[in-house]
């Protein structure tokens, strides 16, 4: 069989496969308007058989001495069909609910990067707050850190009591979503380079802490208004900054601590771990933006704002600790195993059956559990 006649024979099928690929690329499914064997389930069956024969053609291309251009063509054709056969899932909204409410808290609870970032952020924040507050012991710290112009600007900003109108609220919420979440995402992205992320985190911690400390002084004008403004959204926003930096650090650490994987596998794995943390951080940023846009500048009583802050802190703690507590160890198997271990340990009786792995294995104590195993459970 010479190549030309072989190609002529195969070409019809390749053209058919191309047409099916084109239909699937354009409409995401097989050709509805084409010939009957291209429609619906038959079309899919036809497509996959054509794909497999194209794969076989590619495999045999060398043996058939096909010209290189034809081999290149077959590579493209197979790649194109492969992309249609092995499709990836697009965004799945329900899976993102799972990411935010199950994966993210578990990851946050387990990840040491979160602890490091939180420690850096809140440690530096409280330290600089104290240093900025204590003018007598550390004179000039505040103005050295953030500059006296900015301190004056902050003072001036909060001279008037808060009385924003609704017009003001809506645009400010939009502005904060754009601005603050953008900073958070930038912090996350720079996390892969570690140092810029730590810098942004520390810079924000120190400047925010210093301003907080400075505004907390007795002799500063507008300090009441300032705390009136920041109390409500503080918990959401500060946590979100720390979390986005933590997600970024997780990425960056993956680049260096590979844990036995290849570097690219390690960085990919750490990105998979970082994404839920970042998602949680974005949710917090958006919550903070709405609070900051609507509640913070409103003339609502301070008690209400403080109550909101306490409630949001409680929500965050619940989210981190209760949802994040490692769930595998709370399963029934864990407890039953614990009971059996505790039982045999405290009594100290050399139970001959304890050496039998079937007897101590909680998974083996099914409905058909034998007498001695049952006896152990009864004894508890």
């Amino acid at each position: 069989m010479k190549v030309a006649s072989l190609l002529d024979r195969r070409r019809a099928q390749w053209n058919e496969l191309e047409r099916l690929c084109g239909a699937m690329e354009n409409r995401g499914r097989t050709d509805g308007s084409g010939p009957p064997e291209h429609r619906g389930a038959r079309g899919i069956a036809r497509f996959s058989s054509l794909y497999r024969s194209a794969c076989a053609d590619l495999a045999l291309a060398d043996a058939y001495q096909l010209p290189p251009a034809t081999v290149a063509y077959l590579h493209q054709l197979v790649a194109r069909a492969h992309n249609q056969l092995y499709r990836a899932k697009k965004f799945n909204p329900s899976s993102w609910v799972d990411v935010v409410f199950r994966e993210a808290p578990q990851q946050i609870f387990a990840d040491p990067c979160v602890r490091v970032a939180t420690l850096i952020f809140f440690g530096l924040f409280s330290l600089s707050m104290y240093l900025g507050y204590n003018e007598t012991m550390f004179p000039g710290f505040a103005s050295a850190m953030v500059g006296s112009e900015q301190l004056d600007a902050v003072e001036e900003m909060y001279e008037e009591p808060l009385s924003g109108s609704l017009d003001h609220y809506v645009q400010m919420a939009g502005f904060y979503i754009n601005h603050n979440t953008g900073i958070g995402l930038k912090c996350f992205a720079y996390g892969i380079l570690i140092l810029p992320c730590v810098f942004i985190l520390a810079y924000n911690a120190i400047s925010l802490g210093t301003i907080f400390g400075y505004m907390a002084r007795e002799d500063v004008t507008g300090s009441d208004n300032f705390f009136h403004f920041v109390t409500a959204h503080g918990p959401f926003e500060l946590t979100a900054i720390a979390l986005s930096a933590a997600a970024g650090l997780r990425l960056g650490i993956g680049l260096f601590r590979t844990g036995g994987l290849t570097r690219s596998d390690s960085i990919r794995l750490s990105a998979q771990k970082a994404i839920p943390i970042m998602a949680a951080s974005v949710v917090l940023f958006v919550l903070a933006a709405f609070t900051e846009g609507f509640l913070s500048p409103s003339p609502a009583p301070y008690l209400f704002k403080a109550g909101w802050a306490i409630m949001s802190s409680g929500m965050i703690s619940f989210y981190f600790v209760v949802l994040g507590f490692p769930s595998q160890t709370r399963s029934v198997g864990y407890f039953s195993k614990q009971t059996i271990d505790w039982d045999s340990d405290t009594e100290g009786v050399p139970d001959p059956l304890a050496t039998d792995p079937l007897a101590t294995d909680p998974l083996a104590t099914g409905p058909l559990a034998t007498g001695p195993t049952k006896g152990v459970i009864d004894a508890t």
Partner: protein
Amino acid sequence: MSSSSPPATSNEPLDTTIAVVTPENIAFKYQLAGPFRRLPAYLIDVAVRWIVMILFIVVMMFTGSMVDIRFMSPFIVAAGFILNFVVSWFYGTLFETYFNGRTIGKWATGIRVIDVDGRPIDGKRALIRNLLRVADLAPMAAPSTFGADDVPPMLFIPTAMIGLTTILFTRRMQRLGDLAAGTMVIVDERGWQLPVAKVDDPRVPALASFIPGDYRISRSMARTLAIYTERRHFLTPARRREVAKHLTNPLLDRFEFRRDVDPDLLMYALYYQAFLAEPSAELPDMGPLAGYSPLAKDANKPTGFTPTNETTNIDPTTPSTTVAAEPQI
């Protein structure tokens, strides 16, 4: 995941292609896109993002002048901020997820993002690689550091040194975002016509018929012939003969052909023999060439042509052999 792609070995050709092994156990190749294709794509995307924002502002101003929307204005400002946020952070994610791994810039420059396993990318991967673009564009260069004092200090120019360096040092030309997401950018060639060189010169089958029947064209020879016929029309006739003669001179001795047979034509005849000729095919009408033989022992046989006349006739300055489709390089 990466275990399905073959490991990098030292004897792999130094090339910008990457092989992907499918579950059917077929390895097909993708051509990777380097920085010179990706930079224009990125610039187009930046322009598109700017155009979207400018269009939004213009349309809103236009509607504002037509009807009184003062009541709506805070919502419009908020919508503008949120649109800016979405466009600047999630433009690439949304396009790559729902437009088969392409943004507008990538579509225009003919490149595409895929999974390192050769599959289209999903939303999560697109999200990771697009969020991390900021890090790849680092470090930022402020013009003021280079002594340009009259530009506003907020203007930063991304130098993209990080991404460029990583592209250069990874086998799949991945930037950091690609590494983290497990993706790569490939050239998405859309030339789908089948390039098989056709031979419609009657002399070629004629010459091929004189090739001895016991000569088997080896696989590497077949490959060489195919590459030669695909590339030959990029060469001048003199260059063609120069390239071909190294291969045909030993064959002329072996086939006992005359020394003045055109090397280019002999290459074509071999190509015809390897790829196109049917064993049972009839010889085409030779016209005035009938009775001509290239064999050395027939050199003194009287034919309608003298050897000099014959060489000028076969001289491929006016190539009578044509290639049906443009070969793809």
